[in-house]
């Protein structure tokens, strides 16, 4: 896809550039960052991640699995030991706790893979190796007016600007 790829050397410049670009009507942006940056997410208008739903669903699944595993297996072979109830909830709660956490963590991890479309076989053509070192990148995708967008990224302190095919 055609676009303008601007590289920035600081977080602050990148954030300001995103805000200016979005204010000027360029909403189709892909931003690369070497560090996790809540400020950039905010500038892009990303508020929450659906990964949290995966964590909750995983937790519920894990809890239910543990309830079934402990209670049903005890009922399948009902043997009273030490006068305790067949379904001894306090003891089984430990298994329920562990599986809640296990499934929640694994589901959230798979949620990350799903939403970020990983593992990906190849990197984006616009990806530059400096983006994993110290450069931030803003890709303005198919800008309506390429010259204006280019002017804008240069004004906001881009250290390198490329026009990509």
């Amino acid at each position, binding site marked *: 896809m055609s676009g303008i790829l601007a590289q920035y*050397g*600081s*977080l*602050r410049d990148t954030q300001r550039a995103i805000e200016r670009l979005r204010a000027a009507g360029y909403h189709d942006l*892909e*931003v*690369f*960052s*070497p*560090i*996790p*940056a*809540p400020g*950039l*997410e905010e500038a892009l208008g*990303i508020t*929450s*991640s*659906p*990964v949290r739903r995966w*964590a909750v669903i995983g*937790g519920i699944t894990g809890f239910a699995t543990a309830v079934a595993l*402990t209670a049903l*297996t*005890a009922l399948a*072979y009902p043997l009273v*030991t030490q006068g*305790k109830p067949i379904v*001894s909830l306090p*003891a*089984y709660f*430990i*298994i329920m*706790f*562990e*599986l809640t*956490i*296990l499934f929640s*963590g*694994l589901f*959230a*991890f798979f*949620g*990350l*893979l799903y939403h*970020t479309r*990983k*593992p*990906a*076989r190849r*990197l984006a053509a616009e*990806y530059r*190796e*400096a*983006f*994993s*070192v*110290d450069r931030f990148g803003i890709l303005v995708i198919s800008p309506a007016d390429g010259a204006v967008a280019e002017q804008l990224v240069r004004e906001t*302190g881009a*250290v390198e600007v490329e026009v990509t095919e």
Partner: protein
Amino acid sequence: MATAAGTIALTAGKPIADMATPAQDIPNDYQTPLTLADANRDIIRPISAPSWRFWFMITICLLGILAAAYAWSQQVRKGMGVTGINNPVGWGVYIVTFVFWVGIAHSGTLISAVLYLFRSGWRTTINRTAEAMTIFAVLTAGLFPLIHLGRVWYFYYLIPYPSDRLLWPNFRSPLVWDMFAIGTYFTISLVFWYVGLIPDLASLRDKFTGFKRKIYGIFALGWQGTVRDWSHYRRLYLYLAGIATPLVLSVHSVVSWDFAMGIVPGWHSTIFAPYFVAGAIFSGIALVITLMIPLRWAFGLERYINKYHFDNMAKLLLLTSFIVGYAYVMEYFIAWYSADPIEQESFRWRATGFYALPFWIMVFCNVIVPQSLWFKRTRTSIAALFMVSVLVNIGMWYERFVIIVTSIAHEYDPASWGVYVPSATEITILIGSFAWFFFWFLLFTKALPVISIAEVKEHIAHHGDLT
């Protein structure tokens, strides 16, 4: 190229440091603030062809592992008679060492998850190594129940699976809880560690060429650091930290219940869970210090892991030493307050009987030695800290020995009292477990970044430098 980008001045000579004032508490001696490219370069640098010293240490570890493997093969061939375990002491060095390594495993997730939630900036440069330590410590600990089992091929009895006899594990048994707790802890710690590694693996992929690039590229999963991906990533990291925190507390609690659920004097106590958790964090932090000191020296990472970090770890060590010391005192108080002569005799014998030496080693190493950490001079002296941390590790091994062995050696009926002395087989396997742990740890230091690159860069971007 990433290497070329490292030399480019950031934003026309304006350092990223101008975004925040650096903390002034502990001034550093360096003239220029760290840049993102510096961090990238310095942390990746140790991942290179190892020197002869590395191979020498690997060889020592392999010899240790071989010796332990031989000892274990003899145990499998001849039976448990080659150990010192017998009646009444059926739990010896193997269980002691199991609890020791599970305890070591605690600091990793404590540092990475709990301190993450508390926003403690000093965890940034130590969390990766501490997490790696967690993984390898659980790997080591996991061997011991199998070794202790004797007939290791019956291990699968613990796993819930639909057998043709319709028999299931007894979920009321603490040993089954333990398997679930440690299995979950290992899995979640591994996921947490791996998730933290993904952006760093991408940095490695971009740094290297050829085969290395391919391998790191596979594990980096095609990460390219888009902000959309980071938003999911940050959320996942937060959730993992959130669920790992109760997990840290639960694992050693469950391990402690292996003992506390038994009606053995010296074991059957409600303080066991917090007592064990505090002890685990105590020993884990001590091993982090023991490992970090040679590591930062060998890799020239003094700027990243500096006195500020050691000072904070030392404070945590002092705090947990107090909790452990309090537990020691409280155990005696409860024994006295219970008015139960058997409980009282158990504790009297613990400090004055056959195992008095291990008991006093434990008190000396875990309670008295850490008092030196009240002084800032000790906390910021690398040599002193190293000695304190080694002594704490020795003390914590003895703590588990004292709790486990003295209790069952001196139970209710005087006719069934007895003592236990570890055999050469057990000692060899104990030493082998250290070799096994260090083997994995050494491989880690040469294959993966020992400090989280992305987190250090994040810290630099916001605070200008590391202190």
